[in-house]
């Protein structure tokens, strides 16, 4: 498809998501509270998105991934939270 056709298909939806994202950042910034590794990871992912033309989706996913390679000793939870907590301590 041509660029114009893709913009016709997705522009308004993406614009809406961009505004939701901006409002989310404002909302969290307005709120008092402690530092949170998810917030730092989110900003790192935003930076990766801007810096990865052609591979932005993979860049964001990479930035939010556990970068280690060894299995963890034991699973203490079943859930994933969307960012690697290790970023907070490394």
């Amino acid at each position, binding site marked *: *498809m041509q660029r114009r056709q893709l913009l016709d*298909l997705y522009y308004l939806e993406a614009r809406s998501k961009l505004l939701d994202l901006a409002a989310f950042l404002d909302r969290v910034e307005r709120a008092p509270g402690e530092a949170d590794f998810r917030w730092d990871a989110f900003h790192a992912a935003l930076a990766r998105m801007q810096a990865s033309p052609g591979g932005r989706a993979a860049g964001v*996913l990479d930035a939010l*991934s556990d970068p*280690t390679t060894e*299995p963890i000793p*034991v699973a203490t*939870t*079943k859930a994933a939270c969307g*960012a690697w907590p290790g970023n907070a301590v490394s």
Partner: protein
Amino acid sequence: MVSRTTDDYRAMVVAGCAAVCEPAFWAGFDRSSAAGFYDYFGQLTEHEPRRAAKFGLPHFCWLCINPKEAEDVQLAQEVIALIPQFLSRPNVLGIGEIGLNKNSRNELKVLELQVDLAARQDQLVLVHTPHLEDKLKGTRLILDVLRADGRIPPGRCLIDHVEEHTVKLVLDRGFWGGMTLYPESKCTAARAVDMIEQYGGERLWMNSACDWGVSVPLAVPYAAQELRRRGHDAGMIDRLIYGNPKRFLSQCAKFRLPEAAS
């Protein structure tokens, strides 16, 4: 689909789905014993096919202990010992969805045991990759286990829930990749179409999750609509959403569709 009402079976038939393939998965809570899995395997191989048949929908399944319940290796070994007696049942396609959840040592051990079971029993394999921050590491560990074992031909193994950062790893090693379509997490239809356009549709397929969380049984027909919006022709869409699953699953002789659908 053990987590779904009959309304969903009817909706899938009306939308043109030719079959449903249900992997053994987590029930939303941990079973307290291997006997719970025995009953579950009976449900997947006897009760659900009957329930789906009432709506004219052929029902197939995969059997295993899922990675979310794989931290207890002893329980897993008891469950794995139960599986062979169910493998000859007419709707069983293979071993799945095995894989990893939090990428722990015990999960890895249980994955190795189930890869061994699949290899010894000459079964197709369906692999679950972990969610969110655990997916990339988990996918790499899973691919390493499959390579180290070496007995599962990549063409007989589907690595599920690939996303933009794992799809190339999977396809480059010759495996099939599954893109699981979800309304809230994992992959949207638009992103799945992006991956198809970038990596080709030879060994990729799309599937819907029909689990206990927010999920859409008609996600595949909706994705067909997205492919149409993106200008793909009817032949390509049919190859992708019908031909590809049929090609992969037909490696199991028990996978047969009624004439009208094939």
